[in-house]
């Protein structure tokens, strides 16, 4: 069978537009995609930056969805005995809020930054497996849409985000919401696993020459820890979800005590995943703050080895504390003792980070641009979440606190005050690098202060409510329980947060318009920053680095600009313009775009719908998945013609090229290039097979 391939090498260089040629399509379905602009260039892209941006946009959309659910929760609880939501609807809303925020906001938003920045920070052209990168985006997005489609197909999941058995079984939750939960998370888990493997390999294999592990930026380090955590944590939740699916759909009895199963199995499996998950969510933000604070303090990060070491320590210790979510579960005194002690000591590496950030600022020259405001906000707010965390490491006290609003307050201080504030700072910080213009500074300050105030008004009072006994996941309360006042305060705060998000969206729109009207390029290095991504033009060109930098020191870019005098004070040694990349690249060839990851991903939710409603629906899903894999395998990673007639850098050891590495995977490439060149169809048209 002849595989027909597009001939055209993808030249992603300097504005040279290759003439559109008629391109034949592999398997007679798709022409090799070639769109460089327009929506097609996003659909078929394997560029880590575009993928990162799409992760960001999608996760922000889900932030609005989850935020809307949060407002519904707060409205319902604003006054005692409120009838706005029924108990059933409320249970769906809080479950969907939790799952959405964890799996569709915090994790993918961190993925957005990781995808965009890791290759730039380590001086690489792309990730190790660019098409797999696209695959993880599309699978995650397919799973997220699938999960949320449950709202239209019989109601959302209503078991809480940790979805304890046996309440999650068909006997007690006969609706389809929990099926969507199980299968949706399974699908998203596939995407996250692929992405985690990809980024782990990228960090290990794709670093620029000279960049040893201990010269990597802290952001890359923290994300590296996260990816390794994901590689080990996701299989656990996958197993748990599979067992749940088998229980619900095929009458297995893994969690059914009456048939010899055990509800504890789910609890343990969920939290063995669930606790590392907390660090998976918060470490990327820690990484961002560790980049932002040194830049705006004009000082290096204080105690780089301690920052990295504490991140690794958190990653390791995170595996030994899961059962602190189960102090009231009745797992037995010995287990309680062990996990109570291990939990106490995980506070230590986290505390080290807080103090090191403060020491970084100490003696610096602090400039409070918006990214810095958010970073300082994280330091202050995460401290509160960390301290309340220590108070429930004391297991007997936790039996009073757990499943009350005290816990709700705690984890929102960790995930909102930690992860989300950090990532908001990250958005303001890297926005010029991503889009070539600044977000408005004044509006940004409004955004920050509104968010900080709203956040504290929303979640601060929950500490009090929890200690006064307000139970978590209650759809209402009565006026004689004494919860009324602080709930009203909390609801007010939630709307201030919503307002701050509106301000942020306004900022995005207006700063873009302003930029359109009067484009001012912020230049490669708008913040006088430290790491490699600031050496290249803004927005980052498709090829990343015209010339892969050779790294000699941690904070390489900074050290090309600055030295220090005999007193250790900062001295400029080179102008920024002289050290940033300015040259046009010699021809680089990049991994070629592909439709197959999208095709493969589209099949997954169809299989999901099939499992839930009617197995026939799974048939087209399976066909798409198989076709996707087949087409993928048959398609060479890099357009074969890229190696002809160009002065590219094949075999140059100084230039680890993502495209070349992946090209090695595909043994077909030679074969394909030999048979390529016949006539074909236009871009994405063509007959189906």
């Amino acid at each position: 069978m002849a595989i027909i391939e597009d001939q055209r090498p993808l030249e992603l260089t300097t504005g040279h537009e290759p003439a559109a040629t008629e391109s034949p399509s592999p398997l007679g379905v798709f022409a090799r995609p070639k769109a460089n602009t327009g929506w097609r260039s996003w659909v078929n892209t394997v560029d880590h930056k575009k993928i990162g941006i799409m992760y960001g946009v999608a996760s922000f959309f889900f932030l609005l969805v989850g935020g809307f659910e949060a407002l519904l929760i707060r409205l319902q609880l604003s006054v005692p005995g409120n009838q706005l939501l029924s108990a059933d609807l409320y249970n769906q809303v809080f479950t969907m809020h939790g799952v959405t925020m964890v799996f569709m906001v915090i994790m993918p938003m961190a993925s957005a930054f990781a995808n965009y920045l890791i290759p730039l920070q380590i001086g690489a052209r792309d990730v190790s497996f660019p098409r797999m990168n696209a695959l993880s985006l599309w699978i995650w997005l397919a799973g997220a849409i699938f999960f949320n489609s449950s709202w239209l197909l019989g109601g959302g999941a209503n078991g809480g985000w940790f979805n304890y058995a046996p309440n999650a079984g068909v006997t007690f939750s006969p609706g389809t919401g929990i099926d969507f939960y199980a299968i949706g998370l399974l699908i998203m888990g596939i995407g996250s696993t692929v992405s985690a493997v990809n980024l782990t390999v990228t960090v290990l294999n794709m670093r620029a020459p000279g960049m040893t592990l201990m010269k990597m930026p802290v952001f890359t380090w923290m994300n590296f820890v996260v990816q390794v955590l994901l590689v080990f944590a996701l299989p656990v939740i996958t197993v748990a979800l599979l067992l749940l699916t088998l229980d619900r759909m095929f009458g297995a009895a893994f969690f059914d005590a009456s048939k010899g199963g055990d509800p504890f199995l789910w609890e343990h499996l969920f939290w063995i995943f669930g606790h590392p998950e907390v660090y998976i969510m918060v470490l990327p933000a820690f990484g961002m703050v560790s980049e932002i604070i040194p830049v705006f303090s004009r000082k290096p990060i204080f105690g780089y080895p301690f920052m990295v070491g504490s991140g690794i320590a958190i990653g390791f210790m995170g595996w030994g504390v899961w059962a602190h979510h189960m102090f009231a579960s009745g797992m037995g005194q010995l287990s309680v003792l062990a996990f109570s002690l291990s939990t106490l000591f995980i506070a230590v590496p986290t505390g080290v980070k807080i103090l090191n950030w403060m020491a970084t600022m100490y003696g610096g020259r602090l400039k409070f641009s918006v990214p810095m405001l958010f970073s300082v906000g994280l330091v202050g707010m995460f401290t509160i979440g960390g301290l309340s965390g220590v108070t429930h490491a004391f297991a007997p006290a936790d039996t009073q606190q757990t499943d009350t609003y005290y816990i709700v307050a705690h984890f929102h201080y960790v995930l909102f005050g930690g992860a989300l504030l950090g990532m908001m700072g990250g958005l303001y910080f890297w926005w010029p690098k991503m889009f070539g213009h600044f977000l408005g500074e004044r509006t940004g300050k409004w955004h920050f202060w509104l968010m900080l105030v709203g956040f504290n008004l929303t979640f601060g009072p929950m500490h009090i409510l929890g200690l006064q006994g307000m139970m978590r996941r209650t759809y209402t309360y009565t006026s004689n329980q004494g919860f009324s006042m602080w709930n009203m305060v909390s609801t007010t705060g939630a709307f201030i947060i919503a307002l701050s998000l509106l301000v942020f969206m306004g900022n995005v729109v207006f700063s873009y318009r302003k930029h359109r009207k009067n484009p001012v390029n912020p230049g490669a290095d708008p913040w006088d920053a430290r790491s490699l991504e600031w050496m290249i033009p803004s927005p980052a060109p498709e090829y990343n680095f015209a010339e892969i930098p050779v790294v000699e020191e941690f904070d390489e870019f900074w050290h090309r600009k600055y030295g220090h005098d005999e007193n250790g004070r900062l001295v400029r040694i080179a102008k920024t313009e002289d050290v940033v990349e300015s040259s046009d690249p010699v021809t680089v060839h990049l991994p070629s775009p592909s439709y197959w990851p999208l095709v493969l991903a589209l099949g997954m939710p169809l299989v999901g719908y099939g499992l839930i409603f009617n197995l026939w629906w799974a048939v087209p899903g399976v066909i798409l998945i198989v076709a996707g894999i087949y087409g993928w395998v048959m398609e060479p990673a890099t357009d074969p013609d890229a190696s002809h007639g160009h002065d590219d850098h094949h075999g140059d050891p100084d230039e680890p090229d993502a495209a070349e590495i992946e090209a090695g995977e595909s043994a077909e490439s030679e074969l394909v290039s030999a048979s390529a060149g016949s006539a074909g169809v236009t871009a994405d048209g063509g007959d189906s097979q």
Partner: protein
Amino acid sequence: MRNNRKSYVITGVSLVVCLLLGYLLVSNIGSPVGRPLTTLSPRGNKSQAIQDLIIPVFAIAGIVFLLVEIGLVFVVTRFRRRSDDVDGKDEPVQLHGNTKLELGWTIAPALLLAVLAVFNVNTILQMDDATDPLEVTVIGQQWWWEYRYDLDNDGAPDIITATEAAIPVGRDVRFKIQSNDVIHSFWIPALSGKMDAVPGRTHQVILQANEVGMFEGQCTEYCGLSHGLMRMQVKALSPADYQIWLTAMTTAPAQPDPKNELAVQGQTLFVSQCSYCHQVNGVTPTSKSPYPYSTVPDPDYGKTVAITMASGNAPNLTHMMMRQHFVGGLLPLYESGGSVAQAIPEGTPDTNNIKRWLRNPQEVKPMDPNNNQGMPNYNLSEAQIEQLTAYLLTLK
């Protein structure tokens, strides 16, 4: 050389504000008045032990909080870039770290936590201590709690009641926590921490009330639709009152007075309509087979079908009016409100509450009777409601 006064002032002001807020919080948060579920007002020995452990922890956390946050305020104000700062002049010293300092702030908190860990371990070990405890079996179900007292230790319960448990003050009580359907959590904040009720397992909570009182509780593990309204009470009585309660609970209530026609009709109606799920000892036939999922092999509950007092998964109402609350602890049965513990409740029964419940149970508490979760609405006529209410009032 540089004027840092502004920084000191801001730092000082924020310290004062923090302390003030902290004082307001601490002085208000502990009071149990109007806060029936507060965790900070222990009335039992175990909850007191928890309080004694956590208050110093809160205090230390508060001090660390102040040090970090005030330190942060100081650093960001003191080292703020000033308008007269020029790049390239008096730039910051490029300090890369200080291993001794960092080791210090790694080891110091670890040592502090190690010291606290000793108290923590001590309290954990203390939680299961009990001498000659009264044993009460607690069975969680959607969305109410059943209590069983086996007074003669023959393995068969002598008292089965719901929602409201009675215990004597000053004696250890071991609540054996079980579940009949999904995971619930038994929690009386004034007396002890919470404990999950997990199908197929028996867990325990040990507690001792230090004073007489009606202590509120709340299910705290999400258990489906009406989780938020799944409440319970523990009524701590003086030992003498507790004996009175025991005697009343083990004596069959008198049949309704034949002159009380409504009550007699109500009894007939009860037997024909309500006894599928509810039991009144000696009146309703022995229990029906429970709902399909109540065959969970709970060590005690598995026997329920053989126990004449057990119901088809709804509260045993033999001594309903001996309770001061019903509807899973949600509503008071007496107009006095039920916040004062009485061995035998006195005062006027709140018939409005009873009738409201009979008229449309789902309006009071969301339930899903079609899925065997909760009480169906039988669309009783007002006359039937009057009859049933009259009968229920005799169950004391």
